């Protein structure tokens, strides 16, 4: 029989910590708005208005969030398996360019049911290869993935410089690609009509499917089991007979594929062109998404939508005279507070501990009053809670 665990104060959950970071970020935003002499409620109302006030705006927010969800998943997946993928931008670019070139060259009369899977697979493969290279370098030559992914970001960046003029140049403006015809983007007529011609596209459904898929892989499969084992303790994984180096390569390839998909939804769905000389910021925003989402698939999904709201809502801030940078400041502050999650959980744990100690005191009081010789630590949770209530009442009466 297992010994009953002595009762202890509850611990702060990751969700509570993330929500605290969000609340603190919003409070900080309020303070900033107050400091420039404006009404914070106006500001937040405008942000919510800009992001969610109409079907079109909601569509745009979700369209914006799509990339963030996929990048968040990519970073989370790598992180869960012990790797830090800051190469999402480069993986996005290669995924995007693969999708864009295919969109340009595949015949226009290709049925959508075949066309979309083809570009999805191509973009995922391109991003996957990009991630795999980092994994290979780490597994075989012990090159840290932070270094290799950053370098690969720049290789992708310059590759775009070469590939746009070579394959998909827009003859009128020579720094960007020719816009992809609507039928070859991920946009769908019915979605556009339902959301007042917003940027929402099939990519959002890809993001939902991937959220579930990542959750499934990590939670339910032997693949996820071995990848997580390598991520949390590679020495133990090695001892248990799991191949550490192939795990690293697979893991980076999957993370890269997710970012490649983000590139596809971004360049062939949210927008329909690629520009030269632009490193997509989303690759780095995705790190914040993963952090805020505690590296869980569902967490990344909702964190991405939260950031999507702030990013889409900021445009409407200007009308109130509040600088749009406030929205970015809130994002930055949220990231800051998420990064200091140790402090936040220490804060909550401290509070829980104090309230627990008070309860303990009440329980001992109640026990003594009842002439019960047991010690507070011998009780079950239920008895403990009941006695705490009783004790508190008694203590109040005495006073």
């Amino acid at each position: 029989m297992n010994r009953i665990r002595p009762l202890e104060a509850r611990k702060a959950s990751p969700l509570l910590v993330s929500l605290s970071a969000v609340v603190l970020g919003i409070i900080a935003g309020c303070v900033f708005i107050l400091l420039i002499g404006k009404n914070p409620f106006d500001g937040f109302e405008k942000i919510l208005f800009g992001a969610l006030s109409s079907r079109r705006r909601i569509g745009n927010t979700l369209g914006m969030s799509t990339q963030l969800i996929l990048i968040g998943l990519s970073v989370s997946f790598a992180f869960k398996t012990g790797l830090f993928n800051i190469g999402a931008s480069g993986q996005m670019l290669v995924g995007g360019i693969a999708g864009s070139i295919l969109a340009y060259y595949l015949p226009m009369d290709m049925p959508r049911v075949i066309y979309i899977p083809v570009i999805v697979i191509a973009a995922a493969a391109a991003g996957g290869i990009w991630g795999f290279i980092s994994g290979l370098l780490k597994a075989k030559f012990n090159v840290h993935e932070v270094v290799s992914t950053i370098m690969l970001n720049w290789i992708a960046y310059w590759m775009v410089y070469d590939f746009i003029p070579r394959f998909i140049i827009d003859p009128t403006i020579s720094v960007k690609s020719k816009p992809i015809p609507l039928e070859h983007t991920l946009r769908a007529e019915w979605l556009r009509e339902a959301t007042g011609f917003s940027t929402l596209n099939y990519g959002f459904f890809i993001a939902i499917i991937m959220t579930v898929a990542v959750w499934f892989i990590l939670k339910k499969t032997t693949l996820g089991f071995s990848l997580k084992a390598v991520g949390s303790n590679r020495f133990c994984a090695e001892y248990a007979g799991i191949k550490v180096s192939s795990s690293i390569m697979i893991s980076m390839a999957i993370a890269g594929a997710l970012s490649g998909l983000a590139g596809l939804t971004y360049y062939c769905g949210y927008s329909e062109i690629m520009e030269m000389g632009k490193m997509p910021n989303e690759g780095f925003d995705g790190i914040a998404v993963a952090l805020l989402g505690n590296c869980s698939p569902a967490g990344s999904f909702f964190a991405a939508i939260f950031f999507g709201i702030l990013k889409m809502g900021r445009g409407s801030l200007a009308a109130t005279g509040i600088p749009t940078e406030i929205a970015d400041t809130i994002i930055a502050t949220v990231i800051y507070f998420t990064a200091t999650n140790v402090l936040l959980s220490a804060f909550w744990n401290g509070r829980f501990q104090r309230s627990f100690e008070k309860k303990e005191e009440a329980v001992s009081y109640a026990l003594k009053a009842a002439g019960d010789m047991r010690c507070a630590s011998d009780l079950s949770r239920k008895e403990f809670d009941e006695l705490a209530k009783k004790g508190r009442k008694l203590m109040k009466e005495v006073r």
Partner: protein
Amino acid sequence: MLGIRKEFPGIIANDDITLQVREGEIHAILGENGAGKSTLMSILFGLYHADRGVIRIRGKEVSIKSPNDAFSLGIGMVHQHFQLVHNFTVAENIILGKEGGFVYDIHRASKRIKDISERYGLSIEPDMVIEDITVGMQQRVEILKMLYRDADILIFDEPTAVLTPQEISELMEIMRGLAAEGKSIILITHKLDEIKRVADRCTVIRRGRLVGVVDVQSTSASEMASMMVGRPVSFKVEKAPSNPGPAILRIEDLSVMSSRHVLGVKNFSLDVHAGEIVGIAGVDGNGQSELIEAITGLRHAESGRIFFKDADITSMPIRKRNELGLGHIPEDRQKRGLILGATLTDNMVIKEFYKEGFSHHGILDYPRIHDYAERIIEKFDVRSGEGAESLAGKLSGGNQQKAIIGREITGEPDLLIAVQPTRGLDVGAIEFIHTQLVKERDAGKAVLLVSFELDEIFNLADRIAVINAGRLIDVVRTDETDVDSVGLMMAGIKASGGER
């Protein structure tokens, strides 16, 4: 130290403990792991602050806020892990932190070191570099460091863990010498024979409480042991003579490179048969880790061959070796043995999750995995807060080890390799683990045991293979040898005379 109390969240590490040490006395503190010995000493050394209680030195109440305060009060500590800079000389290490002024005079320091060394019989050469001297000598440097700082109260924290039996005897001599010069010595240990050999009095602590102070001369070892554990304990494992079968593991002329790119194991050959326990005796760092890592596949062999059940496994992947029936209780249970951040359930199938029965077409069958884990937990009495769903890192060391042993034994290996299986565990857990290993042997399994504790080797092994500097010195039958000759072999001297 009077009425010392120290609480940590959830536990009372020291509850009203009083420790009185006389001048010129060797005073042992005996207690199981987690009994509160280290906490008590950390309070004396200024690393923790007591919640209650006072410390008096020569009758004067003192407050010790940091190790520096402790130093200036003449309290010195010889840590279990030496605090030495490896590429510095002995003299440089000793004066480190005590250089005195911007320009230091190494010659004057050296002279003083020599004086102290002679006075206490430490035989230390101040100009030697630390990495060139033996572990026993390094420990004497630590002692000298305390004496150089005029310490009168010396705390020894498990000082014999890394020493050969001969070195232990030398240390005991030194300790007696120090006490005779009027120094007070506090010896922290859980080894009873050492206390019997050297200590004057002994304070026994159990679960943070003082059990009693005994006079070592007039108290038997088993009396002290039962005081420490709270019940009578048996030191000897009951076991019948071994009944060895065919060779399960054959190591032929094996050489293995160590992490420092020198040969850690040199031309090592050894057979382990079914139904016997072979103990590898040796001082820590003489090639045991490299040997085991080569057998288990964690390190590749430089030359030579390893056969397991007649299959050449010299360069076989780890998973294949496991599937062939190799069980391994690793030396570092927290680094290798478990994923501390994962649940016990996951840890119990870490080697087998991919097999049919635990998963199907790559999808894990968690209900069955959970049942399997529950069975191990129950059978091996692994205690944890939330059963199979507890994080492995939340378990005590003993329960972590029980979980690993449970996993390995339940995997039904033909060869069980146990490296330091009882390190840092209390007497109860040690008894349990020893019994399990003997049970495996009696079930016809081959057991290869590596231990730095000679007692453990003598207790369990049917044959003893002694390793020194990566070479096999000799293999002897346990019932035909004794601690002294094995001790000599551990130092590299073969029983028949002559050094190899």
